[in-house]
């Protein structure tokens, strides 16, 4: 969503629209995480009045989708693909292969056993 997006590009490295969008989601989630957790606490706490808990539920549901962590998808830092991301390197499978063969990933070697 454009209202969340930073006015100036704050990413280095490979950039495309999807990466910018995902990055925006991450930042928005970070901003609102405490609020979400507080609401979640109120919802889970059975000792609070039912009314307050229901309201907290509503409020959590009305929060913007970008404040939700499930919207975040790990993307390849070097190529932007969203599938088969190796988390240790934040790379997609092909980028990982290329960089590993080029010796850019410390300690990664071709294996055979």
């Amino acid at each position, binding site marked *: 969503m454009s209202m969340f997006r930073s006015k100036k590009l704050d990413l280095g490295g490979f950039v495309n629209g999807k990466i910018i969008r995902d990055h925006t989601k991450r930042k928005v989630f970070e901003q609102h995480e405490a609020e979400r957790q507080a609401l979640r606490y109120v919802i889970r706490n059975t000792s609070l009045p039912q009314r307050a808990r229901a*309201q907290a539920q509503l409020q959590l549901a009305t929060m913007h989708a970008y404040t939700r962590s499930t919207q975040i998808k790990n993307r390849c830092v070097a190529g932007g693909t969203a599938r088969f991301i190796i988390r240790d390197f934040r790379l997609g499978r092909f980028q990982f292969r290329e960089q590993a063969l080029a010796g850019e990933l410390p300690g990664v070697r071709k294996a055979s056993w």
Partner: protein
Amino acid sequence: MSLLSCPRLLLRAGQRLQPLLLSRHSSSLKEPPSIDTPSIDIPSTSSLVKDNVMSSGEGLLPDKSNSPSVLNGQLTQPSGSPELPVTNWEQRLNGLSGKARLPRSVQAVYLRPLRRKAEHGLPVCDLQLRSYSVRNVEFFSDFAIRAAYYLGLPASGPVPLPRIVERWTVPRSNFVHKKSQENFERITLRRLIQIKDGNPETVQAWLAFLRKYAFHGVGMKANIWEYDSLDVAENLDKTGEETERSLEGLFSYFGQREDTRSDRSLTDMLDKNHLVTTKSPLSEVGSR
């Protein structure tokens, strides 16, 4: 000994004298560290000389059997030494006419690391070294143990911990060719060095020293245990007062302000205040 207090210098000397190390090992490996008799030292120093001359050529290590007379014959030829400091070193050694002996601390570099004996065996610090290459981690653990010795810390290890093997299998190309895949692995080697009954400040100094001379490609992780006397509670009470006093300024920012205090209960507040508003917290962001 000045070299004792400055292991960096010691190391550098070690690099210069690498050939000496090898010849020393070959000549008198089984001997205890007490090597001060000149009769043994003459061949070692002269073999150093020989080695410097030879290293550009075959790189073979000279045996102990090389007689000094042959070496001296080689030395008289001016052709073999383009580097000035090397010749100086040779000349100096020759000038000493076989009475030269390297400082003990330098000799120790070529032998197995010395260790102090732990008196109580109480573990104080666990240092884990991690690397992807055996050479790096072995070298640095050796360095760490030597440093511990010179700081007076009893160190045990390096204990080789289980390797961490991570493997990935990726298709070489598009999914159509899923049958052709490639395997990659990353093996992390670990070494554990344990310091026993050392002074906590010395341990800190040791760790700081290791961090200062951190080796490339070697990661470090230290667990430090601190021991206290049996009357912990008393000490805690004492320090508690101090920390409370130091935190007073910070705590003054916390809590409810006097002017906003009311007698309403928490449940009332939850019913009445902003929790009742159903507007989305982001609606104001959207309207901007």
